[in-house]
């Protein structure tokens, strides 16, 4: 197996771990961490598949898209954290309404 496919498989596993954490854990900060890991998995698959070219220069288009994605991810994370702090301030718990303890 070439490194490209190895890293693509790692990306798939990271995606699934992120999805697992996103569904299972209640705390919003942990959900935000999970989304970031999930996104990293997607990025890894994209860039790994762009490296299926042997010794030549890899495809720059997925690289550029992943850089764009990383910046969008940090923007979304910052907004999500602000939302989490607001929820925490309003309800006293950083969880979604259905997970709230009475």
């Amino acid at each position, binding site marked *: 197996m070439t*490194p490209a*496919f*190895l*890293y*693509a498989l*790692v990306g*798939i*596993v990271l*995606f*699934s*771990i*992120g*999805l*697992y*954490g996103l*569904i*299972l*854990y*209640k*705390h919003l*900060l*942990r959900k*935000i*961490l999970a989304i*970031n*890991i999930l996104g*990293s998995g997607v*990025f*890894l698959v994209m*860039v790994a*598949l762009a*490296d*299926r*070219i042997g010794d030549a*220069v*890899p*495809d*720059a*288009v997925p*690289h*550029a*898209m*992943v*850089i*764009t994605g*990383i*910046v969008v*991810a*940090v*923007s979304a*994370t*910052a907004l999500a*954290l*602000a*939302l989490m*702090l607001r929820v*925490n*301030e309003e309800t*006293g718990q*950083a969880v979604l309404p259905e997970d709230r303890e009475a």
Partner: protein
Amino acid sequence: MEEINVLLLFDVVLGLTLVWLAWQTLSSLDLFRAIVLFIAFGLLMALAWVRLDAPDVALAEATIGAGLTGALLLSALAQLSASQKNETKPSLFIRLTLGVLLFFLVIALAYTVLSLPTKAVGLSVEVAKNIELSGVSNPVTAVLLNYRSYDTLLELGVLLLALLGVWSLGGVSTNKSSFPKSSFVNPVLDLVTRLLVPIFILFSGYLLWVGAFAPGGAFQAGAVLAAAGVLVFLSDWYLPSKYSGFALRLVLVIGLVWFVSMGFSFVLLDNAFLEYPPEFAGGLILLIEAAATLSIGISLAALFLGREPATKSDSNIDIDTGVNK
């Protein structure tokens, strides 16, 4: 042959470590520990990018993915009340069910990926064919600022929108500062900040310049600028209130406004929106990137600040560096 085996071993170990760190990040009950593990995960991801011949992505991951995201997460954690930083584990039944379902997902996705052709050139031939016309010789910068500059333009918009969202959510608790303000600033932090901030600004300029022909570019440069902003903010320096109104907003939007106006400026000469004549492309890209670096850096630092800086009094942001550039 020997060398290839060592590299493959390295890849396997790195891959397993990434998976282990991701798992530990999500399953450790202490949130502080989870965030520190996440930062370590980001740094190792940067190594993975290097192994995949993507040094531009590695730079972005190390500065933004690990560095700034980590700083954002830690500052948010500091503002949560201590009582609920821990979490109870969900029941075994739910964990097992979800685990089995996701196992099938992994199998299906792995099958799909492994059935792809082992050799693929993608768009690299197209990128290489037109690189002479793009004005830069780093293919990633060519894609970001020329071939697919719509992406980059909209991305600046996303960054600005996120900041607007954060600003409109923040400022609820005016009585509670995000960081405990004290009259005493750690002298080590203060000294290190004084030494590092000029270096960061210089390095940011270097990354911006070098992006035309080597790994680097506006996003990496902006992230380093933002790191300088975070340091300045942590050591309690404050922004003179006269800058936090119009001047701050001008710096925040200048990247986007400049990008759009450059995009339109050649429409009059029968070009499409964001299409640059090859003879000017190199200079235009540098100009656009310079404005974008400034906006990205200040926006990211402002995101870390988490609230709209007060037009007078104690809030601060690294605006001075922006204005004096």
